[in-house]
């Protein structure tokens, strides 16, 4: 539905976004994930037409309007409004700017206000809104003209847990009706709200695909065990003596056992544990936590860059 080709943006001597190419399929929800300063906001702003790419291009499939902005809804990271207007007035205003008729703009504004939970607050001045309310009004204004592509820049990062929950639920609903692309630097949010992932670091897209795919690609042969005792030295010695074990790492209570042959190692550890009656409380095979994956991918890339 939308495709970027070698999208690049430089500010002075800094290349903030470097040859970014990806494609979003219709009706998907994609998280643009990356640490702060990765270039996520710049990428979204280029796609929204707020800033111009230094090079590269953006293609929108089935483009019937000459103005790409008709098909795009965008919520900036810190949305600012005319604070003297009411929420309803502002929604009708931007609706009219998006070429809706007066009555359609009115109806859409009413519907959206209810939907984002601002039904009552719609007639209040925006200056009196809380951060969470502004964020929800921001989503409503982005949706006013039923865009084909909705882009949200860090929609939940600045919110308290309740506000965050509200917005995540809202996004869950919205992805039923439009293509949703949102940026975040928080892995949990990315995993919770979306099924696809674009991992960005240092201006590059370094990994993309569904969460399952990405996880499989970076699967590492590892077994995590935890014992019901603080003193696990003797068990560690036994583990280390196993031929199938490459190395051990202890993180707090957990012992991470890195191996080559996962199936064989699993059997060996279970055998030895059963034989010596180890007080196991946790035994996990093969999966790497998302945090580790995130750190690993980002690190690898950083290392590659230095070479």
């Amino acid at each position: 539905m939308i495709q970027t080709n070698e999208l690049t943006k430089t500010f002075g001597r800094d290349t903030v976004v470097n040859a970014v190419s990806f494609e979003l399929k219709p009706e998907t929800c994609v998280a643009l994930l990356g640490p702060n300063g990765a270039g996520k906001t710049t990428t979204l702003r280029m796609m929204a037409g707020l800033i111009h790419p230094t090079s590269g291009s953006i293609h929108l499939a089935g483009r019937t309007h000459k103005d790409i902005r008709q098909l795009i809804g965008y919520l900036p990271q810190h949305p600012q409004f005319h604070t003297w207007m009411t929420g309803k007035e502002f929604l009708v205003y931007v609706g009219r700017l998006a070429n809706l008729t007066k009555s359609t703009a009115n109806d859409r504004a009413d519907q959206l206000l209810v939907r984002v939970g601002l039904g009552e607050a719609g007639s209040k001045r925006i200056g009196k809104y809380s951060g969470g309310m502004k964020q929800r009004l921001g989503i409503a204004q982005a949706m006013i003209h039923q865009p084909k592509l909705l882009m949200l820049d860090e929609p939940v990062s600045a919110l308290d847990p309740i506000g965050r929950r509200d917005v995540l639920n809202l996004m869950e609903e919205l992805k039923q009706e439009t293509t949703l692309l949102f940026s975040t630097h928080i892995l949990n949010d990315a995993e919770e709200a979306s099924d696809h992932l674009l991992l960005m670091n240092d201006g590059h897209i370094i990994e993309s695909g569904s969460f399952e795919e990405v996880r499989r690609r970076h699967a590492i042969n590892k077994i995590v065990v935890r014992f019901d005792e603080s003193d696990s030295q003797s068990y560690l010695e036994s583990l280390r003596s196993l031929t199938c074990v490459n190395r051990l790492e202890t993180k707090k209570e957990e012992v991470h056992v890195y191996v080559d042959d996962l199936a064989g190692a699993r059997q060996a550890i279970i055998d030895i544990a059963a034989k010596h009656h180890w007080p196991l409380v946790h035994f996990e095979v093969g999966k790497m936590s998302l945090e580790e994956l995130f750190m690993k991918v980002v690190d690898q890339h950083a290392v590659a860059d230095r070479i």
Partner: protein
Amino acid sequence: MQWLTVFNRESLEAWRNFKWIWVPLVFILLGLMDPLTTYYMPQILDAVGGLPEGAIIDIPSPPAVDVLMMSIGQFNMLGVAIIVLISMGTIAGERKSGVAELILVKPIRYSTYVTAKWMNYSLICVTAVSAGMLSSWYYVSLLFEEIPFGHVLTAAAFYSLWIIFIVTVNIMMNTLVKVPGVVAFLTIAFLIALQIIGQIFQYAANWIPSLITSYIGEVLTTGNIPEELWWTSLVTVGLIITLLVIASYTLKNKEVV
């Protein structure tokens, strides 16, 4: 229609933050000040003191047109300052605060955004300046000599063109930089430069917009419109259109954030 949407929102804002009330009132005060102070000059001199007891001051009362021109001088100083200050943030401020990020991602034409704002400020400023001129004229006619109303109307029409020109320069500067204070500074600097050039090349370039003010004196005195004023007005209209085109173009090619 998009243009009306933006314009109506601008008007609503100008009502809600009382611009439509206080700006005309301030110009009326500016207009009344000079006729009154000139009229009461003898008493003022007396109150300030320094004259011997029983002295009689005999100041010839100045021509009515001169007093009205003093008011226009006020508009050109304090008035222009107010015009520039109230409109310095209309685009720059929205870009700086981030509101523009929500507005300009909607499929709105940049020229619509620019000209709707321009129209709003032009209307406020022309209304205010006209109100100021009329109140000055009323007091001048009351306290000095009658100036024909027709002369004042004609003068106000041409003077409004100069005012609109100032608004336009300000709007153009608004698209160039993001900081309202810098917009105000650039506009004032531009106008001062224009004034200086106008004075130096008064005869070679008698079409410079800032000269409108000096041609108005003749309109007020005789009711005739000098040929130079027609040319200057034509040039001013042309410059206003050009500046608006430049402003729309600049905004379109500028990065919003």
